[in-house]
């Protein structure tokens, strides 16, 4: 049992998301970095899509009311157990009375704290993910706050303590020179002919207001755009707003939008977008849909191989970032 001492900037319960309800305006939600959610859960021998705590940037403090094991995934946000730095990609033992504190750090924006059997919260419409705008999922549809108690699905299971992720890829790569793969979007016929080229050739900087709904980017010269008749958007859609600057939509994005979609992020690279923080530099590279699917299969295979090596259950249907209906 974990107690939230300080929620920090934002901490929510997230699993692989709640696709299939966009027709009533419900976001897909789920972990912004589905890869790291999977790593945190697999470290405990659990399915990759179990609900875990998504910690944003830092400031979060959790207290162990009883001895337990956590799977720590995602960015290294300066996590410490009673002052001792601990790394992501490892299952850590938390003795009763210990504090797990995220002091902040970079690179990356989000860390994941998994509990054995997943954080025990009820599923709403098939998912435990917190949707703050809809007010559902997680703990009463809200962000974690001081005094909240989080129980593991399997209490007293300490078997995973000390387990390490068998590879260098416990977190998605954060090297800004490694471009994020995108495909041409559905609205190019409404955009200047060089819009895609501008997206791919510009060095972008993440604006200060990045959140779970989207990551606004700044850089280069604005791309002239008009509005379009609103059509569906998904996590990974890159819209051009009235400023002529792009925004990459994330897990909590609205379901329809009237800004033209110039490009869409390959699912395999969506976890990296979920780790962008204000001030980060980003580049894009255009790939075909076939190449994007190949990269997605490669990602799943890497996860499957790692899961096999640590003896976790390799079930893939719920890998977050997969916005299927």
């Amino acid at each position, binding site marked *: 049992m974990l107690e939230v001492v300080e929620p920090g900037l934002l901490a929510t319960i997230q699993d692989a998301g709640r696709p299939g309800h966009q027709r009533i305006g419900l976001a897909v939600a789920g972990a912004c970095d589905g890869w790291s959610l999977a790593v945190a859960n697999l470290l405990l021998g659990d399915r990759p899509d179990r609900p875990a705590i998504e910690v944003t940037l830092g400031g979060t403090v959790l207290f162990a009311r009883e001895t337990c094991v956590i799977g720590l995934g995602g960015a290294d946000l300066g996590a410490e157990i009673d002052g001792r730095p601990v790394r992501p990609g490892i299952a850590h033992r938390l003795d009763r009375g210990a504090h797990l504190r995220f002091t902040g750090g970079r690179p990356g924006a989000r860390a994941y704290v998994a509990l054995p059997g997943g954080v025990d919260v009820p599923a709403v419409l098939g998912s435990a993910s917190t949707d703050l705008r809809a007010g*559902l999922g997680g703990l009463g*549809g809200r962000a974690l706050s001081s005094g909240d108690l989080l129980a593991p699905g399997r209490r007293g299971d300490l078997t995973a303590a000390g387990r390490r992720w068998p590879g260098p890829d416990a977190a998605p790569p954060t090297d800004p020179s490694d471009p994020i793969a995108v495909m041409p979007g559905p609205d190019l016929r409404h955009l200047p002919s060089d819009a895609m080229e501008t997206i791919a050739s510009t060095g972008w900087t993440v604006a200060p207001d990045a959140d779970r709904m989207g990551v606004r980017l700044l850089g280069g010269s604005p791309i002239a755009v008009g509005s379009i008749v609103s059509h569906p958007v998904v996590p990974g859609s890159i819209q051009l707003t009235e400023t002529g600057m792009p925004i990459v939509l994330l897990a909590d994005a609205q*379901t329809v939008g009237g800004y033209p*979609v110039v490009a869409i992020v390959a699912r395999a690279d969506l976890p990296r977008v979920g780790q962008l923080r204000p001030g980060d530099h980003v580049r894009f590279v255009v790939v075909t849909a076939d190449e994007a699917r190949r990269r997605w299969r490669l990602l799943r295979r890497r996860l499957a191989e790692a899961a096999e090596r640590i003896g976790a259950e390799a079930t893939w249907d719920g890998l977050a970032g997969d916005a299927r*209906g």
Partner: protein
Amino acid sequence: MADPPLVIEYGEAALLVVLGDRVDPSVNARVYRIAARLLADGGAGPGLGRPVPAYASLLVPFDPERIEAAAARRAVEEVLADPAVSEPGPEAGPGAAGDRAPIEIPVRYGGSDGPDLDEVAARLGRSVDEIVALHTAPVYRVFMIGFSPGFPYLGPLPSELELPRRAEPRSRVPAGSVAIAGRQTGIYPTESPGGWHLIGRTGERLWDPAADPPSRLDPGDLVRFVAT
């Protein structure tokens, strides 16, 4: 335009079917007939996800691990080729989403419930009573739900009520607010930011997180406002 419809690749795991480039009740009715067919038993086949309908388009997700992209496109094109779903529908008539009776939404117009009503009346050169009469006259269609959870885009709004969005959006619009902008009207189901003109408020709960489904309205539904 878009006849035949455009089927556009939308990333590696979805197709976007575009039926038109404007907000048009008959195009919207086609969207919902197609969506209903794709949702029906087995839909267009295994591997296709639940469609996401909008004004004049719908997103059809597919699982590339279960269906080849080309096969997904063929399955969608087969549905589109069926005259029963894809021919122009009756103007403002109910589509395949069902011949439902209009859902009545009681509204308190003006005052603190509709802080923009007086200004709307002044800008349109009409009395408040005329505005209310015009707003309550039509049976509106839920063109789509989006913007925020459960937010219905209703239309068409009588042309006499057409106004651009507010120059300064509000950062907080109370839940239940009934608003107009352009040729549309809508209801804010939850407190959210918003740039439409607030003319009234309903006590009806349009979004209930504990309900399944949480949204009182479904795309394609018909709605009538009743002044209280």
